[in-house]
């Protein structure tokens, strides 16, 4: 059995493509076997909804009269980067809001992104460097999605192919990017949807690449390249899934067509703000091998349990656990039963895959050939310079 993306797209345009979500696919393969499913299905949709810190948006405000060259900028009190063109700013999801007195608030860039995507007004304050071209030195105004030229997400790292499980072996509560970790191995948190996750169903990145069209924040986006900390050389199991954080992708997409249901500001107590993002990837069924890869189950994927009480780059590990164990609600660590909780929403991950499926079935979303592959090799460097 062989298919091409062009053949699949013809069927999509005629609204005859057979599409199933990755959750449905796993059940079907268990029932009917790889061969029969590969014959019957054209596209498999995958999705996730989880915190993705390396998310942010480029905004072009349009020029004022007299014009300004913005050097410092705040959106609803959240500092945005302004070292670009005169009225281009970059708003990052994890930047906390600050009061005019400089005190940090319990919200940040992720919340402002959500607000703008929802079409709500946002306060803008900017300080400019007065020059002959741009004489204005200050600006205060209100902007919204519809009053600025460009507003697009440009995310340097999304969609981790696997992640770690966090626990706390110390005797005090820790506030982390996985939420509160209770002392004496009080709880374990995993931030990844396991077998539902897009990149674990295409472990060697054979079906995606630069230019691949995806579901991003409720709208259409594209893969622009490898993500930061892309580490495809991570050790892998026989089924090619990595045993810890591995590949990542960089993505972009017009935020004006996104929906606040899929771009949600969030805040982790005493850690900081972030954003929860819905991302979905359609995988074309080109052959049986890819169907077999997509049939991978939670029992066949592992993640390392890390002790967050040692704040070092390499944290001590309590070994590997499967996503099946994690999703059952408890794992064993050194003879102790530790309760587990996810931080990725499986419900919403499935909804992303379902929505993407509906778009494809309706003939509104076609698949793309990658313009170039994502790198399969990349050194994973650390920063050890001491001066």
């Amino acid at each position, binding site marked *: 059995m062989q298919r091409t993306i062009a053949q699949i797209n013809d069927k999509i345009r005629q609204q005859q493509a057979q599409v199933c979500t990755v959750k449905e696919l796993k059940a079907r393969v268990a029932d009917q076997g790889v061969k029969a499913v590969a014959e019957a299905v054209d596209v498999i949709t995958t999705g996730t*909804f*989880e*915190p993705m810190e390396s998310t942010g948006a480029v905004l072009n405000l349009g020029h004022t009269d007299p014009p300004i060259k913005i050097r410092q900028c705040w959106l609803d009190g959240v500092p945005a980067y302004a070292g670009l063109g005169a009225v281009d700013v970059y708003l990052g999801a994890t930047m906390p809001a600050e009061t005019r007195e400089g005190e940090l608030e319990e919200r940040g860039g992720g919340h402002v992104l959500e607000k703008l995507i929802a079409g709500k007004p946002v306060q803008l304050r900017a300080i400019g460097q007065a020059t002959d071209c741009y004489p204005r030195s200050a600006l205060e105004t209100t902007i919204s999605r519809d009053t600025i030229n460009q507003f697009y997400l440009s995310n340097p790292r999304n969609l981790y192919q696997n992640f770690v499980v966090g626990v706390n072996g110390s005797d005090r509560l820790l506030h982390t990017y996985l*939420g*509160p970790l*209770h002392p004496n191995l009080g*709880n*374990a*948190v995993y931030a990844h949807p396991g077998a539902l996750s897009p990149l674990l169903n295409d472990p060697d990145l054979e079906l995606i690449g630069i230019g691949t069209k995806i579901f991003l924040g409720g709208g259409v986006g594209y893969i622009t390249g490898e993500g930061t900390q892309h580490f495809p050389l991570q050790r892998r199991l026989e089924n090619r899934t990595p045993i810890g954080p591995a590949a990542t992708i960089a993505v972009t997409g017009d935020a004006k067509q996104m929906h606040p249901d899929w771009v*949600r*500001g*969030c*805040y*982790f*107590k005493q850690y900081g703000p*972030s954003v*929860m993002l819905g991302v979905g990837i359609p995988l074309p069924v080109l052959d049986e091998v890819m169907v077999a890869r997509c049939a991978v189950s939670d029992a066949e994927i592992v993640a390392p349990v890390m002790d967050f009480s040692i704040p070092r780059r390499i944290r001590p590990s309590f070994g590997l656990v499967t996503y099946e164990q994690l999703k059952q*609600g408890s794992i064993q660590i050194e003879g102790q039963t530790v*309760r*587990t*909780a*996810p*931080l*990725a*929403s*499986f*419900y*919403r991950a*499935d909804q992303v895959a379902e929505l993407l499926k509906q778009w494809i079935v309706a003939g509104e979303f076609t698949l793309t050939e990658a313009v170039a592959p994502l790198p399969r090799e990349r050194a994973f460097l650390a920063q050890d310079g001491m001066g």
Partner: protein
Amino acid sequence: MKKRVTLTFPRRAVQMPVTYRLAKDFNVAANIIRAQVAPNQVGKLVVELLGDIDEIGAALEWMESQNIQVSLASREIVIDEQLCVDCGLCTGVCPTQALTLHPQTAQLQFARSHCVVCEQCIPTCPVQAIATNF
């Protein structure tokens, strides 16, 4: 019937074996959900009373006669379904498994009767969807 009440004890009443009296005199089982009691301090007890409707009524009347303040409105955890994203982070800190994910759909479910209002879920929620009702 079952009734959840919050009892506030004046300093003097802290010495009194209230749950014993409820069982002995009124045949009412008092399941302590939450307690904050110390010698010589105003005490607070959230209890679930189980018994005959009339006897619970009589028990409440008796407690009021002993200067124990009875409040029927007890503090409860409220989840804003519009804000909740069903991430499930709260399920890992809930000591009584009142918060769980549905085994099939993975949506958050809240079993109010299991909740002891420890409030650990409130600061855990990353989208601030959990609060108490007062």
